[in-house]
């Protein structure tokens, strides 16, 4: 350790009396020296040596070699030395299981010691040693300790049951420890009760359906009694347990609330928040006209406010929870707005949360104060925070209608500051304000236009373009403005390109006479010169619309849009209810359903995914009206049966008005685009391919309705479509000769286990290349991106030969097929079964693991045909012990057919003999790692059972090879 060396230098003359001296020996002979000291006769020297060992351990040095010597020090009456040895044992017993057995006797003896401290220490340490052999010896001492006369021992033993359950659940059940644990809930000592509850809760986590914590009015009463007397930590366990109970009626509910309320005054914030959870849940059952109900509401505010004066980390968790509470019951904190005002030296994570809650609490009564604060924040130093503050002003305008005007003028003031990022944020939120209050604040457009040049962020540019398009009829130079954007069309981000396309089409529909040229220009840029399928499609859709029926186009594109509302950033009610039941947990911090946090132990996977931020909720975009209502009617003439996708497509390109997360990845649409194109093409391309181009270009309506369309268009239209087709064929990676056996695809990773990502697949060998063929399906609500794959070391060194080619994000309910070429030069480790492969797949959400088995036939190489002579010699050379025989039943092929079928999978027949009506086929196989397998297949005419003998120098592969024979011959 570097710092240990430093210490060595710094402290040589310093405090000799402190433990840091233990770090000073970093010489090579250290272990030997320690060994000698540990075996010293002098007690003091021994203890010092053990301390040195522990010190080395704490900084991550490996001192496991000293195991026997340290264990020898265990039998001592010196409690400190014993504790130190125990500390060491817990750390290293796992790596030295055989040695750990040596300690068992001392443990068992210590469990009988007269001193309860030693009894408890022994049973506690034994439970921490995760070695199977030790657990066998643990049962008897544990049983005694659970019934010990001393409550200190009992409460330690209760925790030990949970530890043992973790190591060997079956053992705990067989030994009846669970029942003993349940009995401890009625123990006379509250500390024992609390620990029993804690242990049972932990065990229940891995048995979701068991009835371990049987909550009934009697047991609840016991818990409530223990609640008053146990330690703060015990109170948390008990409160969390109470929260799972459902009272029979409102009277029981009220009486529990009454007994829980005093916990709101506890100094430990975790106790307070757990109490808040119980109260928030049980309050649901109380009638609202009850006096007690309003008393309770009043009692909830002060403790929540107090949490905000704690350390910043506590504040953060408290704020995340308060965010839920104000959404559920805004009345609790409606008068406490000021405590959420931001102090300039709050950590940024606290500032952002406070801001969010301020908006949730904003109302007509306090909006003036809130706006003054927000304006103040907009002059702060931290850029992120300033941006959020500006957005918050927009959210206030949308939430509190009466304040909209004031908000707009505040935003205009901010625009006057000319601070670049402030101006850009302001324009983005003003766009949202227009969407909420159309035709009200257009007077500000002139001011906005003045700042056109300073906009360099795509979101702000897109917002500005949207405003220009939407109000084109009132902006005299709208065409000039839009034209200026068009110059650098290809350098713009997709978001801006799409918006520009739509805005110009709007402009054209509003002022058709003077903007024909412009609209042609943008349509041709979008359809011909862009390789973004999404943009291309939207271009075609507009083109088609304009060319067939300009009146319909007007109805579609300029349709009245639904107003946006505050709802967009509220948590969905069902999720909110669920989260309220989990106040104080990680779920409440992340605002995600709790099932997302319990790895594997609870089987229930909620399909609903994060509602708070990001792409899942992008429902309100300026175009939604256009798409929602009439677009599907217009669509079929171009793309049959894809009406919904059209909606999605138009829907996705602008972030929801005030989402606090990143805007949905704009490339997310590309998948949609692909599908759209593919689906449309399937039906269009069926027997004739030209009509697609001809249909669009040659349509008579085009000439009429859209007279200015240039004559060159029809011809050039084919080009981009053709390109799209090519893409489509590339995707599948099919079309190779289908000789080798390929097992059907099976599900390797169910969506339930992978946060919505389902993976199924198979393996194939095509033209000498091993392929892993995968189907990825996104069953979650949010877009998945950034896929990558990795294998664990495996028997044949299989490894991906390239990255996983999922270039486009995978949208909800979309599926993609990928084939991944594999190499056999990766690191090797023998697996059991031999053909087992452990795979890790990563995406933007998480990393997921699964294992699958590949048919070993994949590894049979093409040059596996052995010379006859060599075959004979090798067959003789391999000892008979290595020969294994198998039966293949119910196979109705004759020997020739079998032979040719096997050849397809690189199993080569070298010779054939017929003896007494029995065909004997001699075959050879070569594996990718150079192992040869020789086989003799006996086929008796009329007998569907084959006999196969395999000989190989590595006989462990025989079983797998046999399985391949069976699979190949039967498929």
């Amino acid at each position, binding site marked *: 350790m570097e710092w240990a060396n430093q210490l060595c230098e710094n402290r040589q003359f310093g405090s000799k009396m402190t433990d840091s001296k233990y770090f000073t020996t970093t010489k090579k002979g250290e272990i030997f020296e320690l060994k000698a000291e540990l075996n010293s006769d002098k007690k003091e020297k021994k203890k010092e040596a053990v301390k040195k060992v522990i010190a080395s351990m*704490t900084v991550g040095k490996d001192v496991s070699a000293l195991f026997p010597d340290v264990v020898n020090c265990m039998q001592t009456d010196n409690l400190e030395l014993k504790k130190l040895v125990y500390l060491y044992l817990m750390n290293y017993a796992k790596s030295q299981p055989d040695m750990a057995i040596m300690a068992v006797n001392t443990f068992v003896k210590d469990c009988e010691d007269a001193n309860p401290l030693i009894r408890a220490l022994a049973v506690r340490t034994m439970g921490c040693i995760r070695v199977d052999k030790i657990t066998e010896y643990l049962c008897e001492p544990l049983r005694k300790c659970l019934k010990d006369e001393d409550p200190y021992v009992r409460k330690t033993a209760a925790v030990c049951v949970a530890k043992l359950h973790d190591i060997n659940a079956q053992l705990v059940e067989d030994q009846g420890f669970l029942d003993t644990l349940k009995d401890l809930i009625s123990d006379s000592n509250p500390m024992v009760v609390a620990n029993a509850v804690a242990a049972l809760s932990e065990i229940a986590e891995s048995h979701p359906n068991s009835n371990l914590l049987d909550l009934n009015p009697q047991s609840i009463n016991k818990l409530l009694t223990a609640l008053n007397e146990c330690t703060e930590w015990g109170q948390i366990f008990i409160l969390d347990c109470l929260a799972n109970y459902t009272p029979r009626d409102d009277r029981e509910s009220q009486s529990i609330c009454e007994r829980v309320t005093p916990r709101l005054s506890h100094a430990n914030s975790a106790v307070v928040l757990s109490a808040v959870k119980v109260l928030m849940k049980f309050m649901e059952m109380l009638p609202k006209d009850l006096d007690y109900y309003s008393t309770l509401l009043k009692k909830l505010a002060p403790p929540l406010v107090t949490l905000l004066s704690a350390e910043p980390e506590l504040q953060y968790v408290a704020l995340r929870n308060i965010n839920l509470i104000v959404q559920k019951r805004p009345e609790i904190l409606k008068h406490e707005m000021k405590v959420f005002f931001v102090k300039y030296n709050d950590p940024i994570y606290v500032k952002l949360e406070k801001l969010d809650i301020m908006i949730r609490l904003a109302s007509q009564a306090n909006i003036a104060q809130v706006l003054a604060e927000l304006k103040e924040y907009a002059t702060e130093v931290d850029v992120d925070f300033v941006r959020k503050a500006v957005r918050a002003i927009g959210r206030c305008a949308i939430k509190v209608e009466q304040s909209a005007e004031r908000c707009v003028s505040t935003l205009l003031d901010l625009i006057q500051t000319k601070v670049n990022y402030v101006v850009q944020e302001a324009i983005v939120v003003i766009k949202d304000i227009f969407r909420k209050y159309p035709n009200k604040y257009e007077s500000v457009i002139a001011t906005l236009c003045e700042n056109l040049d300073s906009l360099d962020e795509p979101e702000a540019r897109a917002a500005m373009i949207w405003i220009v398009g939407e109000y084109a009829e009132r902006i005299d130079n709208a065409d000039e403005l839009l034209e200026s954007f068009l110059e650098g069309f290809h350098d713009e981000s997709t978001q801006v390109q799409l918006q520009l396309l739509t805005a110009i089409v709007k402009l054209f529909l509003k002022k058709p006479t003077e903007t024909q040229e412009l609209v042609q220009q943008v349509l041709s840029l979008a359809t011909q010169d862009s390789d973004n399928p999404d943009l291309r499609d939207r271009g075609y859709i507009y083109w088609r619309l304009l060319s067939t029926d300009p009146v319909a186009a007007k109805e579609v594109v300029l349709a009245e849009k639904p107003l946006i509302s505050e709802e967009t950033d509220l948590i969905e009610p069902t999720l909110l209810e669920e989260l309220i039941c989990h106040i104080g947990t990680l779920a409440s911090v992340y605002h995600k359903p709790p099932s997302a946090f319990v*790895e594997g132990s609870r089987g229930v996977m909620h399909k609903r995914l994060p509602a708070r931020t990001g792409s899942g909720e992008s429902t309100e975009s300026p175009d939604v009206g256009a798409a929602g209502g009439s677009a599907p009617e217009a669509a079929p003439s171009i793309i049959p049966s894809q009406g919904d996708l059209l909606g999605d497509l138009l829907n996705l390109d602008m972030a929801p008005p005030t989402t606090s997360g990143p805007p949905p990845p704009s490339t997310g649409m590309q998948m949609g685009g692909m599908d759209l194109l593919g689906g449309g093409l399937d039906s269009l391309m069926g027997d004739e391919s030209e009509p697609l181009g001809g249909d669009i270009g040659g349509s008579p309506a085009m000439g009429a309705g859209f007279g200015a369309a240039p004559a060159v268009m029809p011809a050039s239209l084919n080009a981009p479509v053709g390109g799209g087709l090519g893409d489509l064929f590339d995707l599948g990676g099919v079309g190779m000769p289908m000789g080798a056996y390929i097992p059907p695809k099976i599900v390797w990773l169910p969506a339930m286990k992978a946060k919505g990502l389902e993976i199924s697949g198979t393996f194939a060998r095509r033209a000498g290349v091993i392929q892993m063929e995968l189907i990825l399906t996104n069953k979650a609500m949010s877009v998945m991106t950034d896929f990558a794959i990795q294998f664990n070391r495996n028997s044949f060194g299989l490894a991906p030969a390239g990255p996983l080619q999922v270039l486009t994000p995978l949208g909800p309910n979309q599926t993609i097929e990928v084939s991944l070429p594999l190499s056999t030069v990766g690191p090797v480790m023998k697996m059991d079964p031999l053909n087992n492969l452990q795979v890790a797949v990563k995406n933007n959400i998480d990393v997921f693991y699964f294992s699958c088995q590949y048919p070993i036939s994949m590894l049979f190489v093409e040059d596996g045909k052995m010379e006859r002579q060599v075959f004979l010699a090798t067959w003789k050379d391999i000892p008979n012990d290595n020969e294994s025989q198998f039966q293949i039943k119910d196979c109705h092929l004759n020997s020739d057919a079998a032979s040719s079928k096997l050849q397809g999978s690189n199993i080569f027949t070298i010779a054939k003999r017929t003896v007494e009506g029995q065909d004997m086929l001699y075959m050879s196989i070569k594996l990718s790692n150079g192992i040869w397998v020789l086989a003799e297949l006996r086929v008796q005419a009329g007998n569907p059972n084959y006999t196969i003998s395999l000989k190989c120098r590595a006989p462990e592969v025989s079983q797998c090879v046999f399985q391949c024979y069976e699979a190949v011959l039967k498929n």
Partner: protein
Amino acid sequence: MQFPAKMIHSLFLVNSSGDIFLEKHWKSVVSRSVCDYFFEAQERASEPENVPPVIPTPHHYLISVLRHRIYFVAVIQSEVPPLFVIEFLHRVVDTFQDYFGVCTEAAIKDNVVVVYELLEEMLDNGFPLATESNILKELIKPPTILRTVVNTITGSTNVGEQLPTGQLSVVPWRRTGVKYTNNEAYFDVVEEIDAIIDKSGSTITAEIQGVIDACVKLTGMPDLTLSFMNPRLLDDVSFHPCVRFKRWEAERILSFIPPDGNFRLLSYHVSCQNLVAIPVYVKHNITFREGSSQGRFELTLGPKQTMGKGLEAVLISSQLPRGVLNTNLNPSQGTYNFDPVTKLLSWDVGKINPQKLPSLKGSMSLQAGASKPDENPTINIQFKIQQSALSGLKVNRLDMYGEKYKPFKGIKYMTKAGKFQVRT
């Protein structure tokens, strides 16, 4: 292979330069590499205190607190209440401080074996075991220079041989058999005022965080009651577990058997709805002119509503805009300092004499040709007022029952600035 772990799995201590200098695992060993996610977040954070307290990683969650410039990073594996973990971590820090006087990297390394023993005693299988300082001190004696010397000579130990008596009694926070020759009980009422004052001098928010810290050294099992002249001020309180809540609800009297030694009896909150007096005012004039490379800076402080008590230990600090190159200021009293790198201005004022108000005046030089700074600096004020609790809270009387001797009693009041900010 993964084990579902209900509680804290591991603890890493990380110093400000990003080195792990101690690790402790309560279950199986979690590789240090899990901290890489923490280091990433640390790198992204503009200031050390901006590292988010909860960080998800593929298989674990990292929950951290920053105290004494050390990050205490707990590793948990599944759903665990984050507050539980954060509270526990703070308790660990408090314990270290209690044992070693300071909680620094050096102190922790110097006492690494005690640290290890403490951590093992505080958490079993991830469940908190003994976190009360009274009980811990019976199990593991705090190191003192004298004891270390004695131990080295005699070979005696730090570890208590007896079961801590308090742990099982009905009053788990107090050990039995306490004996003192001088029986004394001191209570400190300390209030911190947090406030935001706007440009024009009007109060945006003001609130008081108060605590009553006690140092009780009484023989036997004393039962104390503490009553207030004006208990109605206390509508938002958090009590030490020793306080009998029912009695408070009914009579507004604090009745308790105290822990032995130092403890926080109660903390309370007086919020903005009640009238909070603002003890200090600031007159300021900080201006920049467009096109000029000079800015004006003027600050005058004065007392306000201090109930006749003087303002002491006044310290002003302000983060000036990035565009400020240097300052040329003249304090009427005290010393001032401007750090041109961090742009932090601090002025140690000392006492305020109401007859001669302290002021700091002069000019700021800006980068030539740069535009006028966008941000308005905020002024942070620290001060102390002795012998007064700003809320007006007053203890009426302290009585002791259950023991026969007469204890010596004392009560002290003090007000301090917490986050007291004036916007300009």
